[in-house]
């Protein structure tokens, strides 16, 4: 659960959401909550707090468009 909680905390800070407000399936790009610069900040924070580095040159927007997809993507990177 650590990865989920930490990622949700980072997303809350990035988007200005309160705890529990972000739905796991919410499209962060369609809603205007994230953009390319936000994505850079997101993965920098993830690396700093979780020690998991996602190779930025492989990122596709479809794979990180919702909180649950981001969790999945980071877990995949953590297993590598």
């Amino acid at each position, binding site marked *: 659960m650590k990865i989920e909680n930490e990622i949700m905390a980072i997303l809350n800070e990035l988007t200005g959401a309160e705890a529990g407000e972000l739905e796991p399936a919410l499209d962060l790009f369609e809603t*205007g909550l994230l953009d390319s610069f936000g994505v850079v900040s997101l993965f920098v924070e993830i690396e700093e707090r979780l020690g998991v580095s996602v190779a*930025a040159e492989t990122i596709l927007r479809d794979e990180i468009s919702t909180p649950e997809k981001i969790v999945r993507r980071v877990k995949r990177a953590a297993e590598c």
Partner: protein
Amino acid sequence: MFILDRIAQLKKTDRIALINREERLSYAGLDERSEAFAAWLLKNPEGARGPVVICGGKETDFLPCVFGALKAGLPYVPVDAVNPPERIREIISDAGSGVTVDFSGLLSGDCDVISPGELSDILQSPPVADVPPGLRVSGEDIACILFTSGSMGRPRGVPVSADNLMSFAGGFSPLLGEGDGGVILNQVSYAFDVSGCSLYGGISRGMTLFTVDREMVANPGVLFHWLARSGLTAWVSTPSFAEICMSADTFRQPLLPLLERFIFCGEVLTHSLCDQLAARFPNAQVINTYGPTEATVLVTEVTVTQEMRDDSRPIPIGHPTKGTQLRVAEEGSLVPLEDGCQGELLILGGNVAPGYYRQPGLTAERFFHDQATGLRGYRTGDICCRENGLFYFLGRADSQIKLGGYRIELEDIEHNLALVKNVSRAAVIPVVEKGKARYLVAFILLEEEDGLSPLTRAISIKKQAAEFLPAYMIPRKIIAIDSFPLGVSGKTDKKSLAALLDKGSAP
């Protein structure tokens, strides 16, 4: 016009003008398609009436429309499809345009709009008659009109003449080093003057434009696939785009083995980016430049040295380019201050545009004729100083900012946010980290309590704001407050608002 003459020479070679993913447009093809578009414009009564608006992203046929308009003696108005349709229609109306080429589909159904399908037929048909070279845009004729963010909430046009572009290309060319050819990055939106580096700088040196579109920027996995195959020799972008690329560990010399130089323009170049570039691209030169749209892309340049990187001062914007004079003066004065003194930067010379489009009052305020030198000048509103012959940018005299390389008037956002239902007032604050604005926060005053949670409200306001503003101007965070802190002048006290952020949990 010099660029059309250059294309006419290059069409006799087998050089490629533009690469766009799998697509290749040769210089011969570029010339043919431009000629066909020019012939169509001249034949079409609506076409010959006024500026040609070209609305899109990085479509391959954007280029033939640009040079076709110039061949037909008409200015073009590049508009980025990232804008909402209403804002695009404002630009079309303010430009007084004849026809609009719309690659985006945002304007389908409007009058005098050419769809990509219709354009494709036009560009493929051989010209019915020769386009007389005497018609071409030249000299002081307006070649294009660039619309930037305006402080009144409506885009503001800057007309750029053929002479302005020639002056720019002359000043820019030395930055590309010796020898013709090579591959130059074509990522900056055609609606922004910085794209002139590839469009006018690159083409006048017979280079190949390597295209990076918005979809690639959003998907680094796709971007890096193409970058690895680019053969880039010259990188031109805002520092922000390079910072996005930096987040990938493979963004290093082996990815771009032929790369000779990075040329940055459009916003502050930070020490941290220079240090990272020096470590990852030891063989590439890093050049910083500076210039407002009103002085045609760029008017200073400097190669960043180790000494500048080690210096605690900001990275300098450099020396004036050929044909440009710079002065630091007190506000309202034309008399240069001594070295080391801070003041407003004045730009004089061939790059300075004729004024603002159809705005004589504003033009008289910012542009001037310098009797001592006979040169045309522009008051930038940028606070600068000169030390040992190098100019340094220190900030703005007003609330214009650069965010992600985009030039934004904060009032433009505030005006448009106040158009959103139930928002009575908005104040926008840039959050600055490591010497650069990183994102925007809007504080809003609601007309009446809406009972929404903060996130639901923010999403709803962002969605409504997207009807008036391009995505890059919509603040990342939107925070409703009960009252606006006022300063002594009665204006919103933005310092107190910024202090609210420091107290909160904002990262």
